[in-house]
């Protein structure tokens, strides 16, 4: 990479790191994993940067690489993702079960199966259309619709149980 490209890439990293990190955090439900995924994504972008430099599609490309990286990581670690404990066992130790909206949603989101979580986040946080989300996830528009619908349904179910947190099953 020449000096000009390198400067442009650094600028891109500065401009997009926070946005990608936030998306990765919602997709991974783990801060450490999210950092790791974003750094891998941007490192892959660095290799492709000379041909992305003048393209207006760098953001879309980054999003695609990020979702693929999250999927790769999830598949590699599939044994690690098993339903285990209730909220009390893994939670942040709120002794009064007074979960605020944000906390309740974060826990409910983390409890979703990964593909449902991805669909909900891409549709309702990244503001992608069903077609764009399907393209990114490598599935049909119908699958995105059903994953999103099931995901939202489960979010509602989980949030119904906010007052009974021991019944919420999380994944870790």
């Amino acid at each position, binding site marked *: 990479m020449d000096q000009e490209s390198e400067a442009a890439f*650094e600028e891109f*990293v*500065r401009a997009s*790191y*926070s946005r990608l*990190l*936030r998306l990765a*955090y*919602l997709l991974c439900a783990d*801060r450490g994993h*999210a*950092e790791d995924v*974003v*750094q*891998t994504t*941007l*490192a*892959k*972008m*660095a*290799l*492709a940067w*000379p*041909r*992305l430099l*003048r*393209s*207006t*599609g760098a953001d879309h*490309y980054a999003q*695609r*690489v990020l979702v*693929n*990286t999250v999927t*790769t*990581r999830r*598949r*590699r670690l*599939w044994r690690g993702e098993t339903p285990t404990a209730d909220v009390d066992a893994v939670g942040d130790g709120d002794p009064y079960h007074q979960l605020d*909206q*944000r906390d*309740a*949603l*974060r826990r*409910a*989101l983390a409890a979703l199966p990964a593909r449902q979580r991805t669909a909900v*986040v891409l549709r*309702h*946080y990244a*503001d992608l259309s069903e077609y764009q989300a399907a393209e990114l*996830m*490598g*599935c049909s528009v119908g699958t995105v619709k059903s994953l999103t619908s099931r995901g*939202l349904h489960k*979010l*509602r179910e989980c*949030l*119904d149980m*906010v007052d009974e947190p021991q019944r919420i099953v999380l994944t870790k």
Partner: protein
Amino acid sequence: MNANESVHESSTLRDLLEEIVDEVSPSLGYSAAVKRRAAMLRRRRRTRRLLASVTTVCLLSVGGTALHIRLDELDGQDDTAAAATDGPFLSWDPTGNRARDANLLQQALRIWDNADTGPHGAVHPLLLDDENALGPVIVVEGRSRTGEPRLAFITASADNKEALSLRVDRPAPDPVTTRTISLVTPWMQSDGSLATSSWAVALSAPGADRVTITSTAVDEQEIGDNDGQGHRHQISFLPLSATALTCTVTTYWSHGTATGQPASGGTVRDVQPVAATVRETSDSSVKAQVNGANTAVAPGQFVAISDGLLGRVRSVSGGTLEIQPVTAASSVVSSRTSLSNIHGNLRGSGSGITFTDISDKDQDQVLVGNRVEVIDPAETDPRVGAITVGRISDRSSSGAGMEVQPTATVKPGSVVYVLTPPASRNG
């Protein structure tokens, strides 16, 4: 309004998600961390390319001892000793984390025995593994009920790791010359339908250190690290654009050589390439002879090699094909750029190709080095498979089309593949 009510409204859900991520901020030194990781990937890629593409012999002499590092040509002679053979079977030692698991083997055999070729005898497992992203994968050889040596791939399903299915039951390969066997297919759901990725299973003979699977239809950035994990088998997934035709299995042998081998498909829904041998070539046509009898080949079908698209079948007569190369003057192929997905046509000029008919708003998106690909019409699902035609080499005259450097070249004696739809397979 509580959180439960709020998920009914998309805008509020978005606001809540925004609040959740508000607390996430980049750690110090993130920019340097990205640079370090990019440098590591670059080093890895360089090493991989070096090993995979070196075609000359490197000779290092240390104290009179020479170390040869050589990449063998596909199908070429090599100095990797084949394992001692046992009749018509490969008889490699079983490998995988469950290589000695009789229960898993029995489970797989029950499925294989229910196939048309079962029940099977003289069964010998080659791979029993479930420490991978797919789940249990079993590769086994044995005799069919009519005594024919067969090889089967029985795997978990992409949608259900508990559901084992027989993916391929094919004649056992030649035990003397075969050193790698593989299966690449996207048809990996429990009912044999399309998965969200293509899956690749590759296994090499004892003596292999590492196995990798790459596709010419997939950019490196699209996939995770398929570096192999120090085993002589590899089970990984690739984007749906990767099919057996475009995949190569590279095996790194313990004594310093690396060999490349075309991957195999073969499930009932995979496009079946029909092999043909090139007899003569010119700028306007390529003539080839179909290997064996086959009536599935028809005009209009694509002809390709692993590196990319060669052209289309212009005519067939008694097993002899005339192929119109993509570079021929009257050739027009509808195509798109990879990743950026800009559509246009590839027009042959007699000696080269130009990428034309791109909408004005998309012109700036197409860059030198971009890969231009076509979707294979033989595939039954448009999401499956892509074949590279070339890369943009010059966009200076974008008004008249951008120059494309083709990736597929053949000479007399080369083997090419006609891509016939699964339903029309014959022979």
